[in-house]
């Protein structure tokens, strides 16, 4: 759950400073991003994986929960990847098709990653923006609360939550999202502090626009750059967290699965000669995370032009 926050602070300072330049910043950024081969490749891979996970089921012969009764019990001998019987990625121990399970697991993992970081971003941005904008005592108290929460080992709390209340996708989203808004809040607050004294904000204040409206209209839009970068880097962290929870057996309910759950099953059975059970899901997992990292790094570099 660690995005390099110091680097983010540097980026946030720079974005605040260059805000005045307005549109040209984004145009420049886009140009720089397109020049970054790794980042572009990341985007292509991500789009491909997303498309495959959404539409790939059309090619599947089996659904993600159907058991192939010809294969069940002989996964090591008959469950290998094969075009003929429709198991392109082979089957799991129960004879279920890994191709459709991998696609479905990718969907869940992407969803956990994206929804989780969405929650983190929304909560973190609003909290940070309000804290920074209102300032004074409120700011101090709000930031103290963040400090306190930061010292709580949240992974422990998530484990507790899932153990206590049974697994549900909703709890998983919520837990993982709540795990990561704290740093976002700090960064956003920092940037809000510097935005607050820009002429246009002061102008809005002078004309009597309500504080909340100023935050939403003038502050938040100017935070988009940093938020986008942070969110992109958060997604892979979320997916990793989910995979750990799946390893503990607290992930999504069968017959649904996630990449984390597939990998963890595959890893536990490598001794038995069913390597494809690990290989395919792991490939999707690694590719997805790689791509997100590259895109995130690319976005950051594009918005923060330094020679890296």
């Amino acid at each position, binding site marked *: 759950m660690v995005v*390099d926050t110091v680097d983010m602070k540097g980026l946030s300072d720079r974005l605040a400073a260059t805000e005045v330049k307005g549109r040209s910043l984004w145009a420049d950024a886009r140009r720089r991003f397109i020049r970054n081969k790794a980042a572009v490749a990341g985007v292509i891979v991500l789009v491909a994986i997303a498309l495959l996970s959404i539409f790939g089921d059309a090619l599947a012969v089996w659904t993600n929960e159907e058991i192939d009764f010809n294969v069940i019990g002989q996964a090591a001998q008959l469950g290998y990847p094969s075009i003929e019987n429709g198991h392109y990625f082979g089957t799991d121990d129960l004879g279920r098709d890994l191709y459709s399970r991998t696609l479905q697991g990718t969907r869940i993992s992407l969803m956990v990653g994206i929804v989780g970081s969405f929650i983190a971003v929304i909560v973190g941005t609003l909290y940070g923006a309000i804290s920074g904008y209102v300032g004074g005592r409120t700011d101090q108290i709000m930031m103290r609360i963040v400090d306190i929460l930061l010292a709580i080992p949240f*992974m422990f709390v998530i484990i507790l939550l899932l153990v206590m209340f049974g697994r549900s996708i909703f709890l998983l989203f919520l837990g993982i999202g709540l795990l990561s808004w704290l740093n976002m809040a700090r960064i956003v607050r920092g940037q809000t502090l510097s935005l607050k004294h820009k002429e246009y904000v002061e102008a809005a204040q002078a004309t009597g626009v309500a504080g909340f409206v100023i935050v939403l209209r003038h502050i938040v839009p100017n935070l988009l750059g940093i938020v986008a970068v942070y969110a992109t880097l958060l997604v892979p962290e979320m997916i990793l967290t989910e995979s750990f929870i799946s390893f503990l057996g607290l992930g999504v309910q069968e017959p649904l699965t996630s990449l984390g759950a597939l990998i963890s099953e595959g890893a536990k059975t490598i001794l038995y000669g069913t390597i494809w059970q690990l290989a395919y899901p792991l490939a999707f997992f690694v590719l997805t995370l790689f791509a997100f990292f590259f895109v995130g790094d690319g976005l950051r570099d594009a918005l923060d032009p330094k020679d890296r």
Partner: protein
Amino acid sequence: MLVYIAKRLAVAVPTLMLLIIISFLLMHAAPGGPFTQERQLPAQVLANLEAKYGLDQPLWKQLASYVWGIIAHFDFGPSFIYKDRTVNEIVAQGFPVTLYYGFLSFLVAVFVGVSLGIAAAIRHNTWLDYLAVGVSIGAQVLPNFVMAPILLLTFTYWLRWLPGGGWEGGQWQYVIMPVIALSTSFMASIARITRASMLEVLTSNHIRTARAKGLPERKVIMRHALKPALLPVLSYLGPAFVTMITGSVVVDFFFSTGGIGKSFVDSALNRDYAVMLGITILVGSLTILFNLVVDILYAWIDPKIRY
């Protein structure tokens, strides 16, 4: 500085209180208790058990006496499941193990990660750089629960070089696989962060000045570039610490090291209330302490920061 430390420690108390209350309430809200068994206990036996462990008291009283036990006697209570042990004993046995392989992993991760990061930065855009970046991203996304069984299969089953688990008081051959499994992803993150910040530092003005003075490159890097380049690494270490504790669950699970990571998960599953609270408090305190140490180090390295 001292005032700052005192302030931080003062905040630690409410933080821990909050942590205790959240965990305590979560635990008791959960279905089932420590004595819920497949063979339902006769009501009288259950009553005897609850009386023995004070579970028949109202919740607030249980919480109060628990907290009082900690403050007054540093007593975290008895385990409800491992009935011949107290929480203090369980932690005293498991924590040194976790600390030992955790600390070693930390050292390995920092040392290898920083070296790799610097090497990649100095040889920017060469094959060494690409290799380092590739390896580190790869290592970062490979979960340790995948790595652990692969290590086991390779070193224990195929090569027969290392014992497949156990601790034996921390003999080297039992420590190697846990440390590899735990340190790899941190090593990778640290390498990436070091590389990025090193690249940035190397293009900054004061390095240009140092180079202009004709200092040899090695000296420029060791004396002028390294310190500022390590700042982001330092701030990464705080949160990394917690993630590492979480990762120790996997190590304990696969390598039977007997650390507290597995004890925590077990205690949550078994409703071993006192053990679970005890470990949560321990990890919470360590997190606070560790963050503080990191901040102090930060101030020490970066004189621009004043508290």
